[in-house]
């Protein structure tokens, strides 16, 4: 008997307390925000207890307390699976959420509904934790949909802006499309294995079938913005920066990847699905990296960077390395959240300017933010011995030494160098050279509410990789030897990217305005994907359904087929029968013919 189960339940319960407090008067006071932030901090600290126990004694727990309902032979209860993945993810998520909450006290300071904002962030956190700790698919789905809904509410926080509303709607729609796959898998599991419990699924599925995994892949693609279901993620930048930092970089978008990681016992035996996931991830990572190259909004560049890293995580799962993907989730959360916080600091200081073409020269003005930004970008590109290195380099090594699809590998490598290129673009356009913003700006970064979160995440960006790799128990045999050129692949690609970026940077010093080439247009317009897919299919579907409803159903089936046809037939028949010439010889002729025919047919048919 130890503190394991109590700590977990206490963590989860502690986070719901501020929600319950929101119905009291305390909700209206100024202290609510700090209360929420402190609750998250305490939850983080308490969640370290089970994690430490797991690291040291390899203790995993399955908590199943409340039996909700039994439908025929399906038993649904509230059960939490505290294993490798959820135990490592909880502290990371709580740490980052704590930092973001502290940041958003500063960022959303002038917002009248700031308490509601914190409540929403907290509900989001709770649903994310429900998602990660769920032991059955039903609870996971509750968390899944919960994060979707909170994403909608938070993206559309400034709902007076129509772009924000459409972006929120877009997020919900794309997620919903993915949910079709999720529900398909749930149904398949229910009808073939009679359960939604993960343990039973893993035990029963000996020759892992295609259908459930093919259902989970679109679900992951929808939630984690893989190619085909990706446009919602850049549009989601309409929400406030803390929302982008929390949801759309560290926590929510990894839910899809997390789902596929959870199902790794099924995936490790299914080669076709692995190949599919690999190809999808490779395509995503390259495509979004290309799109990130020519964006002008700093948040959109970081959003595409997130999308690219999510593609990389998909590639890892496709290489049958779920634990590496999980490691990348945790490490990526640190530096991506920090990048968003830095961009939030820049945006707020430049009076809500988000276009990098109107920033510049912040190197001397915002020294701390500059440091954090550069460190974050370097960690993102996989600079040796920063955080990103520990996961990204391992992934590239695993990719180059696996017996895998060479095309996917090539795309991943190209995307790695593109990562360096757009990181250089961010750095050079926001921080370096002469300022391009209006001169009367009050820029300062003295507020501890701003500095402390970034400081914490900075320490995390530098050291978390090391700490996590050393404390996570290895679940697969690590790759010990490989040829030198394969070992240095990631580093070489990154350095190549940096060189190219610096080289191209010197081009843009002349005065003549270069008209964008076709390739630039392709990249800026996000590969024409939203332009085509948001207009053509809805138009086709809507016109088809209108035609079906009015022409086919109304005019044809209910009007012309039976009533009008019957009327027409009767009309013609009556004209035919009553149209007599009156010549009796014709009548007698008809009599003769009838009689002859009758006599012949009836006599000889006897």
């Amino acid at each position: 008997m130890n503190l394991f189960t109590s700590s977990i339940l206490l963590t989860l319960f502690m986070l719901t307390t501020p929600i319950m407090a929101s119905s009291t008067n305390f909700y209206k006071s100024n202290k609510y925000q700090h209360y929420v932030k402190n609750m998250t901090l305490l939850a983080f600290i308490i969640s370290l207890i089970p994690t430490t126990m797991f690291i040291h004694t390899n203790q995993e727990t399955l908590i199943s307390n409340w039996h909700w309902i039994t439908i025929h032979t399906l038993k649904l209860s509230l059960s939490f699976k505290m294993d490798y993945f959820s135990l490592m993810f909880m502290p990371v998520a709580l740490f980052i959420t704590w930092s973001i909450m502290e940041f958003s006290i500063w960022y959303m300071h002038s917002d009248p509904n700031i308490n509601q904002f914190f409540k929403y962030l907290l509900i989001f956190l709770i649903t994310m934790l429900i998602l990660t700790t769920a032991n059955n698919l039903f609870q996971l789905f509750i968390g899944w949909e919960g994060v979707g809904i909170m994403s909608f509410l938070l993206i559309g926080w400034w709902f007076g802006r129509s772009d924000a509303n459409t972006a929120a709607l877009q997020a919900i729609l794309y997620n919903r499309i993915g949910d079709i796959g999720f529900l398909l898998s749930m149904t398949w599991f229910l009808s073939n294995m009679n359960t939604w419990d993960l343990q039973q699924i893993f035990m029963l599925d000996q020759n892992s079938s295609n259908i459930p995994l093919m259902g989970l892949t679109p679900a992951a693609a929808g939630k984690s913005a893989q190619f085909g279901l990706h446009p919602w993620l850049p549009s989601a930048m309409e929400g406030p920066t803390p929302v982008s930092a929390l949801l759309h970089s560290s926590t929510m978008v990894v839910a899809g990847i997390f789902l596929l990681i959870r199902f790794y016992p099924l995936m490790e035996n299914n080669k076709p699905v692995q190949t599919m996931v690999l190809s999808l991830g490779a395509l995503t990572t390259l495509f979004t990296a290309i799109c990130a190259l020519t964006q002008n909004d700093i948040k959109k560049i970081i959003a595409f960077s997130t999308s690219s890293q999510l593609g990389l995580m998909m590639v890892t799962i496709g290489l049958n390395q779920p634990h590496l993907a999980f490691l990348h989730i945790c490490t990526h959360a640190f530096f991506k959240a920090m990048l968003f916080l830095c961009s939030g600091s820049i945006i707020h200081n430049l009076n809500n300017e988000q276009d990098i073409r109107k920033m510049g020269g912040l190197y001397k003005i915002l020294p701390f933010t500059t440091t954090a930004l550069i460190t974050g970008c370097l960690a993102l590109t996989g600079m040796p011995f920063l955080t990103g290195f520990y996961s990204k380099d391992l992934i590239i090594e695993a990719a180059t030494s696996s017996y895998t699809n060479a095309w996917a590998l090539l795309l991943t490598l190209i995307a790695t160098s593109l990562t360096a290129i757009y990181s250089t673009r961010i750095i050079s356009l926001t921080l370096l050279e002469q300022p391009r913003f209006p001169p009367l700006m009050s820029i300062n970064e003295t507020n501890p509410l701003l500095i402390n979160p970034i400081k914490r995440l900075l320490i995390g960006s530098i050291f978390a990789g090391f700490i996590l790799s050393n404390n996570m128990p290895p679940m697969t045999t690590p790759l010990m030897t490989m040829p030198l050129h394969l070992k240095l692949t990631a580093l070489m690609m990154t350095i190549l990217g940096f060189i190219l970026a610096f080289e191209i940077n010197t081009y843009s010093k002349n005065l003549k305005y270069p008209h964008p080439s076709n390739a630039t247009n392709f990249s800026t317009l996000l590969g024409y994907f939203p332009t085509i897919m948001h207009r053509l299919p809805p138009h086709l579907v809507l016109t088809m359904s209108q035609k079906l409803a009015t022409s086919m159903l109304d005019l044809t089936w209910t009007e012309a087929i039976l009533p009008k046809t019957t009327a027409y037939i009767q009309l013609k028949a009556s004209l035919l029968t009553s149209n007599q010439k009156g010549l009796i010889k014709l009548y007698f002729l008809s009599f003769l013919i009838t009689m002859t025919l009758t006599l012949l047919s009836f006599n000889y048919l006897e």
Partner: protein
Amino acid sequence: MNPFISIMLLSTLVLSTMIVTISSHWLFAWIGLEMNMMAIIPIMMKKPTPRATEASTKYFLTQATASALLMLAIIINLMYSSQWTIMKLFNPTASILMTMALAIKLGLAPFHFWVPEVTQGIPLTTGLILLTWQKLAPISILYQISPSINLHLMITMSFLSILIGGWGGLNQTQLRKIMAYSSIAHMGWMTTILLYNPSLTMLNLLIYIIMTFTMFTLLAQNSTTTTLLLSQTWNTMPIMTTFTMLTLLSMGGLPPLTGFMPKWMIIQELTKNESLLLPTLMAITALLNLYFYMRLAYSTALTLFPSTNNMKMKWQFYPTKQMTLLPTAIVLSTMLLPLTPMFFILL
């Protein structure tokens, strides 16, 4: 017409039908039919208009052909059975020929072409005699030879009659032609059930005669021969509009009026003999009949066509024409349905 000649013709008419019904010798039945034809031709020519002449000529030609065919069938039967008794025929050819001859006499399809034209050319009361009394003789012969009639031939002819009676009447505004097509359709219904249960043929015939008699008498009151004239009855005798509507609906076969009774019995009898498609189709095509009856009822009783104000204030005199048996006929043709069990006496 001279009353003596009139009495002679009418009595010959009655006598001839009675000869056909009561005779047991084929020759006498044939003679009766010939007398019938001869008697009615002068009656049809009461008013010697070209129309009436044409009608009588057509009637004569068709009926004469039919009698000739009938004689042929009788001779063939004689050849094969060596006896003249009226009973079922002993040769399929004879049976087919006789069936078709009687079909020509009755006006069943595909021998129906003469009925509308003849009916249209003659005055209303003669038309009444043509459509009611003239049917008695052939049906009595059909009744007697019913065991030997070819089923397929009969069903084909009767269903075709119902169809043609329905479709033909849709395009008419002349009331006599409408009644002619209605007679074709009713003949179709009658001959359908002939091979299964001949008593129902008799029942149908009886009800049909009552209803047609009612209809014609109502029409003869105002000498209305077109729909337009019929739509003006509200002006002269308003009560007639109600009666006309009820009788028309009864002819269409709507419960709870009398006309429903034969249709119901026939459908029941057919289903008892396991033919389901035929009564369904018959019932559906009876709707065509009902449609043009409804059209007449609509223009008579349910709407007022636009007319001048002078017409609306017409002085209503007492009727001068003899309304022979009209109240009785109306009651019989609309309220007889509860007395259905009574008709077992026809068995």
